[in-house]
């Protein structure tokens, strides 16, 4: 195992984050505050409670998930796409690092950033509403697993994309809608039965539901199912990454 190699990649990626520290902290704080103003104040005055939790508190886990997903993807995808775009990837390809080491370095750094981001949003939310965390360990586990899974997904996206448009289109066209429709801001049980069934095909539902359960013990689907689905995605992404490097897909010509 090339530990120095992993460390070099991880440090490089974290340094990139540090250079944009202001933006990394300020933008989630601002957007979270905006959500609370718009959703919490405007909608919260009509929907006071969902399943015994005040609306403002209810949306916190969904808000964190929303940022976690988009940030993990954009961070990890950019991390590997940019060297491809600028040509510096030659060094990575010519270095004695294996698939595992490259992925641990890039995805580890992206996931770390996402987890930190989750913490920042949580702290900001705490400033606006009461946040309870009934199962902190589970909460952390969901946070880490989701950050890892979507960082891996972002990594795959970054490898696959051969222009900036492709890089941007998946988060906007796929991930954001799935998150909004996945119960970030409402309970699935509030939907008509047909839509409830349709919604169950949305993988993000399971992530948000499990995550929210760790806060307030209310869930749209069984927690066990949420854990299984989360691990399932992680596995799918791991297999995809393994295949990418085994075949040299889009990295080596």
């Amino acid at each position, binding site marked *: 195992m090339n530990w120095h190699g992993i460390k070099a990649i991880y*440090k490089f990626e974290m340094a990139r984050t540090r250079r944009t520290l202001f933006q990394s902290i300020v933008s989630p704080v601002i957007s979270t505050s905006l959500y609370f103003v718009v959703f919490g104040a405007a909608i919260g005055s009509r929907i006071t409670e969902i399943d015994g939790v005040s609306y403002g508190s209810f949306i916190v886990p969904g808000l964190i998930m929303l940022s976690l997903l988009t940030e993990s993807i954009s961070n990890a995808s950019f991390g590997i796409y940019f060297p491809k775009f600028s040509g*510096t990837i030659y060094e990575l390809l*010519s270095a004695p690092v294996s698939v595992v080491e490259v992925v641990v370095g890039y995805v580890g750094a992206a996931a770390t950033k996402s987890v930190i981001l989750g913490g920042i949003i949580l702290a900001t939310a705490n400033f606006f509403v009461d946040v309870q965390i009934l199962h902190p360990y589970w909460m952390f586990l969901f946070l880490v697993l989701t950050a890892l899974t979507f960082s891996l997904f972002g990594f795959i996206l970054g490898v696959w994309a051969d222009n900036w448009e492709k890089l941007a289109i998946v988060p906007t066209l796929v991930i954001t809608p799935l998150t909004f429709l996945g119960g970030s801001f409402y309970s699935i049980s509030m939907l008509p039965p047909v839509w409830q069934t349709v919604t169950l095909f949305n993988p993000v539902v399971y992530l948000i539901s499990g995550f929210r359960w760790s806060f307030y013990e209310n869930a749209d689907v069984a927690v066990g199912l949420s854990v299984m689905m989360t691990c399932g995605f992680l596995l799918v992404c791991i297999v995809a990454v393994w295949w990418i490097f085994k075949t040299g897909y889009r990295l080596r010509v």
Partner: protein
Amino acid sequence: MSGESPVLQVENLNKIYDDGFEALKDINLEIKEGEIFALLGPNGAGKTTLINIICGIVNASSGRVLVNGYDHVTDFRRTRSLIGLVPQELTTETFESVLATLAFSRGLFGKPPDAAYLEKVLKSLSLWNKKDNVIMTLSGGMKRRVLIAKALAHEPRVLFLDEPTAGVDVELRQDMWQVVRELRASGVTVILTTHYIEEAEQMADRIGVINHGELVLVQEKARLMRELGKKQLILYLDDPLPEIPRQLDAFDLQMGSDPDELIYSYDSQANSTGITALLNELRQAGIHFSDLKTKQSSLEEIFVDLVKRIR
């Protein structure tokens, strides 16, 4: 040269790109440890493709590459940690500092941090006073230096320089050749490509010529120049000749750029150069000369000749 054992073996290497283009055709090559090998060839000949395959950036279509006896695919950790590459294109990080990018390269290649060594590398490339500069703010030539420093950061035993002197000023060129000489003195093998043939002539122990994906020639430089290089005898005549007399036809003489120059080309390897006979004939024809000199064709002339002949 520190040894004769091959540090690099390329066997039956082929490369067909996805679009069906055959960039390399059955390349066989052995590089000895500690030598400087110059790979010459016109644009698009396949030099970069060959180097990129050896370094692991491009996949070969068939054939194999051994570095120090280890296969470069199955034993990539061993082979790649021995190799350093300065790519042809100027591709550097943008926002990193010079020192940080070197530390990154070293770590990536599995070496523990060594500030003293990196300092030495930076100093040898006159980059030490720029160590904290963000790479984006450096000039093109300095970025080239950074690329060389990065390639040396992990103390490679084999260094590939893919056109290191393209667009580089005299000073950097001299710095670079100084570095190459020092590397060679410490036993590092250097494989370079260049379009400046006088560089190959000065630096290389052996020369390989690649054309349309085929390795058409591999030869000791000295021998190549002796065998393929023609010698010329230039005579400076007392009186310019209106034309070359018929009785000298057998010597295939040529007029020089000045009318008082007469040029005789001969093969220095042949048993008889024909010089004595020529001088006799000249005296009989009553042609007098005040001075003479001999000149050996440069590698450049040999190269141009060779590529023309292959076409």
